[in-house]
């Protein structure tokens, strides 16, 4: 009888303990996206005929998935800048949509700094969710972490941004800020959160390779939701004891990570990316209305009168010789970057404009590519080499023909390619082949595009740089403003001048 009572007691204890364990288990869902870059409307990715993305369609799917499980909706940075839909409201449109979608937290990405510190502060204050940046020193509105409860489970969310942020935006945007090492920062805040949260999640805008390193080196991270490298992680990766995910780019996919948590431990997980396509009737109408509202504003901004040109702007002859439009754009780039000179490819200028009223959309036609201004140090010898390359295909009207500012040069097309330049002056003085000059260009040429090796080779010695006095101080790279398209810089310039009348000044002379 006694044994029977003991057995019954043990069974009851076992049942109670199992019931208790079940009661403590929570099934939660992490929904995530990264590197949206303001791609609110469905779009055709490069090389594809298929429409993808569309934030109203993604929002609808978020709502459906939320109904199935207690969920968090997170963004791993680079949300507010990129596409015109975002840029022309300086990112306000994105924050409005994110508020409507009830995001729980977002990490700042390097491109969140692109509109300047004042705009970022405004966007942070408009956001109904915390924007996190644990390794950013000097901007108190960026919180290091937040703790969110999901069905009683406390999830600590730490935000990290790439340490490379200073080279990916205009130096003035990050002046006075310090981007601390992500590993040490993660160690510090994981330690701080471990006693306060059941699950520690890092929202990382540092890149997938860094996320793997974080997982290997920092103990105590349960989940990393990543961004920055635009990586399409189809299934969650496990490194160390950490689950790593990332959801591609431009709202083309929504990340779904389901986790079962028991006594502060993740005991099971399953994840996937759901690709987003615009299917009629499958959109969130409230979000669609915001997308449309800002879309109409984009149209209005593009139709806006920005100034008047007193002369016709020649975009037809930019592959054959100096033109007034080439001079105008090259001058603006030199002024914006503070460089000694500008060299751009004539082929980057796609059309000319008639004299009269100029609208923003006209400049978008002239400069349709998403190019930005870069400036590097080149020797006089390298500049001469770049110019030689630029004129080497003039007889075939090759797009590499240079348009310049701060430089005058003379060439003969009848001379052998590679030896056509007969004279080069910079700032009115003969070029010194051994001296270094700062030269502005677009990022396409700076990467060696159109065969401009002189610019491409500058990458070989640009490792050690720092920001000082609002400018980059490094071996070769002196300026990079990837957050502002060249066409927008040109529009701002014309708006400021109101009336323009650029001319051909004899910067490029052909020997006859």
């Amino acid at each position, binding site marked *: 009888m006694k044994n029977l009572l003991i057995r019954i007691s043990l069974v009851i204890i076992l049942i109670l303990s199992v019931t208790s364990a079940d009661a403590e288990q929570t099934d939660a869902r992490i929904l995530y996206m990264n590197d949206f870059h303001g791609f609110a409307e469905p779009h055709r990715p490069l*090389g594809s005929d298929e429409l993808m993305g569309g934030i109203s369609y993604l929002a609808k799917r978020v709502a459906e998935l939320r109904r199935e499980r207690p969920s968090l909706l997170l963004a791993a940075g680079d949300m507010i800048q990129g596409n015109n839909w975002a840029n022309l409201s300086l990112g306000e449109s994105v924050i409005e949509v994110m508020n409507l979608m009830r995001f729980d937290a977002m990490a700042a990405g390097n491109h969140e700094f692109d509109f300047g510190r004042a705009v970022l502060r405004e966007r942070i204050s408009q956001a109904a969710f915390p924007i996190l940046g644990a390794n950013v020193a000097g901007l108190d509105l960026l919180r290091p972490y937040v703790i969110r409860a999901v069905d009683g489970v406390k999830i600590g969310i730490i935000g990290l941004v790439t340490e490379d942020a200073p080279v990916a935006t205009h130096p003035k945007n990050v002046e006075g800020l310090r981007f601390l090492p992500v590993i040490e920062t993660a160690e510090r805040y994981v330690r701080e959160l471990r006693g306060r949260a059941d699950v520690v999640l890092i929202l990382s805008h540092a890149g997938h390779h860094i996320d793997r390193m974080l997982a290997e080196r920092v103990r105590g991270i349960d989940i990393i939701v990543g961004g920055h490298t635009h990586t399409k992680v189809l299934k969650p990766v496990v490194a160390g004891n950490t689950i790593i995910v990332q959801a591609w780019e431009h709202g083309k996919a929504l990340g779904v990570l389901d986790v079962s948590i028991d006594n502060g431990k993740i005991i099971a997980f399953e994840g996937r990316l759901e690709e987003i396509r615009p299917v009629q009737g499958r959109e969130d109408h409230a979000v669609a209305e915001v997308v449309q509202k800002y879309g109409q504003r984009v149209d209005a901004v593009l139709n806006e009168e920005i100034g008047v040109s007193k002369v016709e702007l020649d975009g037809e002859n930019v592959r054959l010789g100096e033109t007034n439009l080439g001079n105008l754009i090259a001058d603006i780039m030199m002024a914006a970057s503070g460089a000694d000179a500008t060299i751009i490819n004539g082929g980057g200028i796609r059309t000319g404009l008639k004299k009269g009223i100029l609208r923003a959309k006209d400049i978008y036609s002239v400069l349709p590519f998403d190019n930005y201004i870069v400036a590097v140090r080149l020797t006089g010898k390298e500049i001469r080499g770049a110019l030689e390359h630029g004129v080497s295909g003039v007889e075939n009207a090759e797009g590499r023909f240079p348009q310049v500012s701060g430089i005058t040069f003379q060439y003969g097309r009848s001379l052998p390619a590679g030896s056509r330049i007969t004279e080069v002056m910079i700032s009115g003085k003969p070029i010194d082949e051994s001296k270094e000059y700062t030269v502005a260009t677009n990022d396409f040429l700076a990467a060696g595009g159109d065969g401009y090796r002189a610019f491409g080779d500058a*990458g070989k010695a640009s490792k050690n740089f720092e920001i000082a006095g609002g400018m980059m101080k490094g071996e070769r790279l002196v300026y*990079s403003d990837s957050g502002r398209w060249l066409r927008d810089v040109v529009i701002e310039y014309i708006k400021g001048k109101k009336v323009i009348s650029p001319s051909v000044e004899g910067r490029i002379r052909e020997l006859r």
Partner: protein
Amino acid sequence: MKIYVNDRLIEILPGMKVRHALIQAGLITEAEAGRLVYDEWGNELGLDGALSEGMKIFLK
């Protein structure tokens, strides 16, 4: 910044992205025609994805 594109070393300026590495490697037109870029673990990358020192990418 040193990057490997299809196992070939190329060097680009800090802060540049996947598309710039492909320009430098002379492969951008192939990406524009629809070929895809992957990282060393086989994950597809967007052309605006960030790069870092020593990263290996593959155009397939």
